């Protein structure tokens, strides 16, 4: 085997080539880990938002979108009286009729953007178990409670949605009475209204959906209820299934993320390969000299791979540092909520694997080309 110092020193033969290789691999790895983190973040926020114990009752035909759904107000009491085995707390069944709405909200600074609004009563906390009030209180009429990440959806500073601040909806001013968290779920990006407030502000006399939490009841019990009470025109869908279908809705976006990452990476990989071809081509005679001394082609290939790995792993490390400072913990808003980019072990392993593959498989074509000429011919090359 050739000494490791040979591979190490070869790295610094041409600093511009080294910069290209390190920069190219950093770009590829960064894009890859960003793509994985984006997709993972989106998947995890959607999967965490749904509970297998919760069932959503929506208007028949609106199973794909709660916002389009309309459910009669009376349906809520019918659910409570007809379905046995629902969770209860201090005699209150975990059934929450809610209005879900997407509309522009204006903050005190005058900035207006689309927000996810949910009209609820206090019993909503019985079904949305991840929700925790961080400060303030549940909204009374004329008040709203905002999710910790709602400001990201509105594109404003968190201070504009702080306790005591005012927001404007349909020319009505509403006080922020509470800040809540619902870690890792889409709820954390929502603004919760008093249900009656939202009903009157949006001039609707129906609910969007009823969410209920099962104890010893089963989904089939709820489904049978929807069939028996055909007059209410309801459809039941498990909450986790609803959010997983929502995830499928975002599949084309995920594909676009991968395609974009793949296209930019392909450019960087071809650029990197070109650099390696040029770097190795100028060393054909040196490789031949080492073979004439007695080093096998295999030993030389290992040394070339070591050299490339040093460069690509440096790039990988650079990508991790950039990702750590620029991506990790950053929240990304999307239409139904906000998710956080996290450098999970899986994301880090994916980046590391990419760096190793770039340094090994990516090195093979130029290395083989450099080592393949016959020895007499290679010794004559300039």
């Amino acid at each position, binding site marked *: 085997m050739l*000494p490791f110092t040979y591979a190490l020193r*070869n790295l610094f033969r041409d600093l511009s080539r080294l910069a290209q290789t390190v920069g190219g691999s950093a770009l590829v790895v960064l894009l890859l880990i960003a793509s994985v983190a984006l997709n993972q973040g989106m998947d995890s926020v959607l999967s965490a938002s749904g509970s297998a114990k919760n069932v959503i009752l929506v208007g028949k035909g609106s199973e794909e979108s709660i916002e389009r759904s309309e459910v009669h107000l009376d349906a809520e009491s019918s659910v409570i009286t007809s379905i046995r085995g629902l969770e209860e707390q201090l005699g209150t069944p975990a059934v929450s009729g809610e209005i879900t709405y997407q509309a522009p909200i204006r903050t005190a600074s005058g900035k207006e953007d689309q927000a996810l609004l949910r009209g609820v009563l206090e019993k909503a906390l019985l079904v949305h178990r991840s929700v925790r009030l961080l400060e303030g209180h549940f909204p009374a009429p004329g008040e709203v409670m905002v999710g910790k990440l709602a400001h990201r959806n509105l594109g404003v500073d968190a201070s504009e949605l702080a306790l005591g601040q005012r927001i404007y909806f349909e020319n009505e001013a509403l006080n922020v009475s509470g800040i809540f968290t619902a870690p890792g779920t889409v709820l954390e990006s929502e603004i919760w209204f008093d249900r009656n407030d939202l009903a009157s502000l949006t001039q609707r006399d129906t609910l969007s959906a009823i969410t209920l939490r099962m104890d010893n009841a089963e989904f089939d019990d709820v489904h049978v209820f929807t069939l028996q009470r055909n007059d209410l025109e309801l459809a039941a869908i498990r909450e986790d299934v609803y959010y997983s279908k929502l995830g499928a809705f975002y599949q084309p976006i995920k594909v676009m993320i991968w395609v974009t990452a793949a296209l930019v990476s392909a450019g960087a990989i071809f650029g990197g390969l070109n650099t390696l071809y040029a770097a190795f081509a100028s060393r054909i005679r040196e490789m031949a000299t080492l*073979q*004439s*001394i*007695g080093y096998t082609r295999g030993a030389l290939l290992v040394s070339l791979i070591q050299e490339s790995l040093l460069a690509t792993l440096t790039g990988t490390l650079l990508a991790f540092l950039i990702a750590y400072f620029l991506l990790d913990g950053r929240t990304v808003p999307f239409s139904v909520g906000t998710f956080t980019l996290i450098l999970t072990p899986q994301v880090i392993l994916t980046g590391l694997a990419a760096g190793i593959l770039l340094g090994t498989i990516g090195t093979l074509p130029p290395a083989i080309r450099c080592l393949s000429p016959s020895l*007499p011919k290679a010794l004559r090359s300039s």
Partner: protein
Amino acid sequence: MAFISIRSLTKSYTKGKTSVTPLENLSLDVPQGEFLALMGPSGSGKTTLLNLIAGIDTPSSGQLEINGRNIADLSQRQLTQWRATHVGYIFQLYHLVPVLSAYENIELPLLLGKLTKAERRMKIQAALDLVDLSDRAHHRPAELSGGQEQRVAIARAIVHHPELLVADEPTGDLDRDSADSILTLLQQLATEHGKTIVMVTHDPKAAQAAHRTLHLEKGQLINNPRQ
């Protein structure tokens, strides 16, 4: 018995659609410790013969025995191992590894064996002393003159004590003084250390330093006189 024994050696290959035969039916004996010079015009087959003797290339037919072993029958892998032990190659343009110091360049053949670091250091120091470059051990090739580079290349070629040294125009890129000192060194290696040396040269003065000079033309030896 000759150290190098060549019988009916032919090397041919195809270039495009043409068949080229740089060496044809060549026979030659070189005794151990001889310093042999090969001369001839460009394309006469000198370097091809040198590469065959060094195990860099393989013949198309014929017998090529070095120290009693027919290297024509060896596989590429066996040839590589054989070169590592038995041959030292000296190139016209030195072919030193630019990122390694003189010491590290000389160490390269030794890293193929199982010597300890201390044993390697001893051998490298001896080789450096022989080529009179001990004070330049930690200089990189770019920091050495052409003559010094060639001395390092010679030290690298002899450090593992091969019986055979092959040199392809070793003085072709040097000024007269440096060339003379390299030739003196090669003479010393043959006479005092018993190395068998085959040198290709265009320079009649370099050839004069050898014990014997052979002339090749169109792949054939045109005379074989002992000088």
